[in-house]
């Protein structure tokens, strides 16, 4: 059973607010609060984002290295526990993985290190086929991303395609810089084109951060449109009623995903007036 609400329901199940007490008491939380007290490493209080940040700015290079090592140890402890837990729950976990993949999702996201698809969504290995590039772009002439879409749709038969951008995207910012960036020029040009398409709306947003945030959203919408323009998506949808395309934006300041609530059917109808590739 596939409908456009499934992705939304997954999303809703993920964006329930987290009680702060629970968040702070998470035993695996990799903050230096549990670090050895004899350490000279400053211990920023995670309850205050601002204080956190300013403390970090004051840290000496040496202290950061030490902090990162301690933090990393905890990360590995968590990973070990995760792997052991996986094996305890399902001894065949890795054997099954090597037998084949049957993902329900194709994730197209930004390369940015802060947006790991699996962890944001809680999806497990085997659940999502993943493509990540600078500023989550889907360009018609890019064989790289177009191959990913074709393979995911025609061969893996994914049910959902998620294009996920994020606020504060460095790629989007770089694209709007009045500077020659070499090999990045042809790639980032696509974002300038998105700006031009929505010039009137964007120009009147006085606040710079708000304007970039809106450009990030508009970029995701445009890339969703580009996904739908592909022959594989149009042909599969005509035949199977899937995949459904979703546009999401992640905010790493609050850890929440925003669903741009694309009307997939309407967007498909709209683009097919000109970009119809249903017949093969």
């Amino acid at each position: 059973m596939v409908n456009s609400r499934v992705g939304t329901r997954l999303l809703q199940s993920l964006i329930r607010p987290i009680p702060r007490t629970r968040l702070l008491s998470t035993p695996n939380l990799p903050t230096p609060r549990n670090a050895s007290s004899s350490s000279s490493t400053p211990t920023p209080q995670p309850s205050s984002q601002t204080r956190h940040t300013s403390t970090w700015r004051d840290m000496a290079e040496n202290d950061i290295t030490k902090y990162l090592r301690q933090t990393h140890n905890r990360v590995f402890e968590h990973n070990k526990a995760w792997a052991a837990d996986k094996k305890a729950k399902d001894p065949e976990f890795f054997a099954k993985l090597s037998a084949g993949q049957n993902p329900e999702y194709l994730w197209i996201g930004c390369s940015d290190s802060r947006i790991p698809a699996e962890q944001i969504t809680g999806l497990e290995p085997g659940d999502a086929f993943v493509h990540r590039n600078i500023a989550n772009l889907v360009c018609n002439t890019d064989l790289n991303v177009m191959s990913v879409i074709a393979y995911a749709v025609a061969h893996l038969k994914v049910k959902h395609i998620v294009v996920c951008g994020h606020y504060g995207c460095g790629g989007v910012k770089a694209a709007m810089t009045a500077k020659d960036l070499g090999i990045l020029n042809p790639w980032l040009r696509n974002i300038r084109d998105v700006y031009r398409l929505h010039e009137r709306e964007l120009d009147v947003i006085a606040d710079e951060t708000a304007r970039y945030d809106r450009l990030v959203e508009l970029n995701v919408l445009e890339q969703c449109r580009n996904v739908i323009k592909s022959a594989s998506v149009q042909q599969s949808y005509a035949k199977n009623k899937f995949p459904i395309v979703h546009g999401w934006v992640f905010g790493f300041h609050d850890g929440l995903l925003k669903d741009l609530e694309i009307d997939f059917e309407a967007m498909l109808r709209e683009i097919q007036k000109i970009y119809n590739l249903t017949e093969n």
Partner: protein
Amino acid sequence: MDPLIPTAYETEDSFLYALSSNAAWAGYKAHQNPKFFPIWLGCSDSRCPETTLLGLQPGDVFVHRNIANLVCATDINTAAVIEYAVAHLRVAHVVLCGHTACGGAIAALGGQRVGGVLDTWLAPLRGLVVGHEAELAELPMDEGGGDGSGSGAGARVRRLVELNVKAGVDVLMANVVVTEAVRERGLQVHGCLFDLASGRVRDLGVGTSAGKGVNGVRGGVVRGKHAELVFRGGGGATMAAR
């Protein structure tokens, strides 16, 4: 219950963990120091989530994933990612990772037309098949020695994936941005293979570590501890797990 939904509920804890660690790492990001994190070039395959198999957390690794982890000099998508990570973020390591039973390698060995844009994308893999025809023909396609209809878990696919990683590392080493960073600030380039059946990552001893092992770490690297391979390199970035 809809079969798509349980995944979300079952992993609520890991999601909460991701969010909480995300908040904790905000400090790390505020003091963004990319010499501590690598760029990961891997396959889009759903079974190879880099953060999970490396034991890393949000903020640790810059990522590009495509079909069969191909690195082609004229692919602007990959080139833009490399430029951004190496020249602008100044990462300390580039890790190119292939994996066993890769669908792209299996398709390239199959010799059949895959359809649409995929045949063009897979052309470099087919080039490797042509160039190593005799060597590959001697290896079994499947574990039982079958002829290609199975899961592709055999040595022929594995060998093609290895050849592909090596070829990709050569392309990386020939990238002018990478070449300059290797020369000027000791950027390290690694090629490795993720074995789906064991969860282990193996260093293929190519790239900047060719011939000398990766900082003395050789052979099978246990999952999670793989980060050693990535982090114990030059520049004093000693983020070893032990």
